[in-house]
């Protein structure tokens, strides 16, 4: 098992200071390791996640070689040749478990931003104090975007959030964590070969959630109440001005409707399961408030905005993978983790085999199935 840095490297180095998991502690389970601390409904800080993964590394006695960066994987006659910063390795099979978030994705229009506006990605961002005083434009309303917008607003800065399609969720529904519902009602068990539009499911932005001790909801209404100004999707830069889409109402409507449908499904599940009595009454949330006049443009040269934070998602990095299994959009071609090259596998990608795959507790079933395939592959080759 090769790790470029230390165990839990990306959790140690590629997250901002206040970052906590979106999943409650009790959902952080790995084979043979469950949360046993005093706060099952809380959300792990980065230090806690790091510790949790370190414990699992020890418990599972995984043969981790730290400080070993893979620079190339090539196909050979009977497997793969792996080049690392610590030497060469020949092997029959390779499991790519390098994740889906290796590089922040920043749209090309960032190149047209005037040079006196500072630009940061979530990999650069640590805490509000590192930004110059003045206004911040946060781009993207996934979990990252809403969390950074709230934190920056609370630091006293004027914050504008550019919102495209997004996923709205309340933190708590009928007294339970919304991710308890996802887990219990079976939404997360939906398999990748049952999902209507798998491409869409795999590129869905992370839901507007934050893990805080107060278990508060951080949807767009919460941000509006904090004084964050909402604008539409950032479409272009023209003459030093950012131009935003006028379609803000529609992305609100899409997210509100999807939330309503999800809550309907939860209620239906609770009713048919006969667990209504254990839960609070069904709730419906106020529609996302539309700003009275959302700005369609913003002068980036006027000094109103000093910093832009790109919360526009992440992409995997396969530049080291010298096997032709990456499509024109930079995605790995695989069927439930079985990559389009014999003996090559993937784990830990969004909706790899089920909706749960995206989360720490989703790895167990995925790993069992993928490794089952791998073991058969190796056995067949050995037998031949």
């Amino acid at each position, binding site marked *: 098992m090769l790790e470029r840095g230390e165990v839990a490297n990306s959790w140690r180095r590629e997250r901002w200071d206040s970052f906590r998991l979106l999943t409650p502690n009790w959902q952080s389970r790995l084979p043979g390791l469950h949360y046993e601390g005093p706060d099952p409904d809380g959300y792990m800080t980065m230090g806690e996640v790091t510790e949790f993964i370190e414990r699992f590394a020890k418990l599972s006695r995984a043969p981790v070689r730290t400080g070993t960066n893979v620079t190339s994987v090539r196909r050979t006659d009977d497997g793969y040749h792996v080049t690392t910063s610590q030497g060469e390795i020949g092997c029959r099979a390779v499991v790519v478990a390098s994740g889906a978030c290796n590089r922040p994705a920043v749209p090309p229009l960032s190149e047209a931003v005037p040079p006196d506006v500072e630009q940061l990605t979530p990999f650069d961002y640590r805490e509000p104090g590192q930004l110059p005083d003045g206004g911040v434009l946060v781009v993207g309303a996934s979990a990252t975007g809403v969390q950074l917008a709230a934190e920056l607003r609370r630091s006293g800065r004027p914050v504008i959030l550019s919102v495209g*399609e997004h996923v709205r969720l309340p933190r708590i529904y009928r007294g339970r964590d919304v991710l308890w519902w996802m887990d219990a009602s079976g939404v997360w068990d939906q398999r990748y070969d049952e999902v209507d539009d798998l491409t869409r499911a795999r590129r869905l932005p992370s839901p507007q959630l934050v893990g805080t001790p107060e278990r508060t909801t951080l949807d767009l209404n919460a941000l509006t109440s904090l004084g964050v100004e909402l604008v539409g999707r950032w*479409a272009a830069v023209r003459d030093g001005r950012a131009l935003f*889409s006028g379609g803000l109402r529609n992305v609100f409507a899409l997210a509100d409707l999807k939330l309503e449908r999800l809550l309907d499904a939860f209620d239906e599940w609770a009713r048919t399961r006969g667990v209504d009595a254990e839960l609070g009454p069904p709730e419906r949330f106020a529609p996302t408030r539309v700003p009275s006049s959302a700005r369609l443009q913003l002068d980036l040269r006027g000094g109103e905005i000093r910093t832009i934070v790109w919360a526009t998602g992440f992409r995997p990095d396969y530049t080291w993978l010298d096997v032709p299994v990456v499509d024109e959009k930079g995605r790995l071609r695989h069927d439930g983790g079985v990559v389009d090259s014999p003996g090559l596998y993937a784990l830990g990608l969004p909706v790899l085999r089920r909706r749960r795959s995206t989360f720490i507790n989703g790895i167990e079933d995925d790993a069992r199935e993928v490794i089952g395939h791998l073991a058969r592959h190796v056995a067949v080759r050995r037998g031949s």
Partner: protein
Amino acid sequence: MTTVANGVNVQALLDAREVLKGAPEAAQFVWRASSKWQNGVHSTSTVKEFYGLGAEQTHRNEAVFDADHPEVFAAEDNGITPIEYLLVGLASCLTAGVASVAQNRGIQLRSVEATLEGKHDIRGILGVDADVRNGFTDIKVTFNIDADASKQDIEALVAQSQKRSAVFDALTNPTDVTVEVA
């Protein structure tokens, strides 16, 4: 699933989507219109040919559109104003989207009516106030839909039709426009 008849060949659209996934060049269309000045602010535009699927294509019939300005603009009103054509485009695009999405979702439509209102401060085009823009201040579309579906499903149809609308996108997002003299 029950058979719904909204008159949209969704299968052809879904097939096209599959084919064009592997052939992005065939998906490149060019829409064309040409216009001729008549007199005053009256012009006549015609639309017949377009390019797509790798070849020149032709509408079954040439369409002719007169544009003018109303009498309150001291014009002859030989046709609707150009900015009204944008409302026509938006209404027909969203309506086509509603029908297609309904067909795809197995929702039978009985009637789909839309009314559109585009607010316009003409101080912009008259140059009265440099801070007033030339185009619409805002546009409001109100759908009245009678269908075999819940209110929530109908709202979802309308939301999805905006998400996949060419004209909604063209109106809500900036487009690079070149105007030159041949």
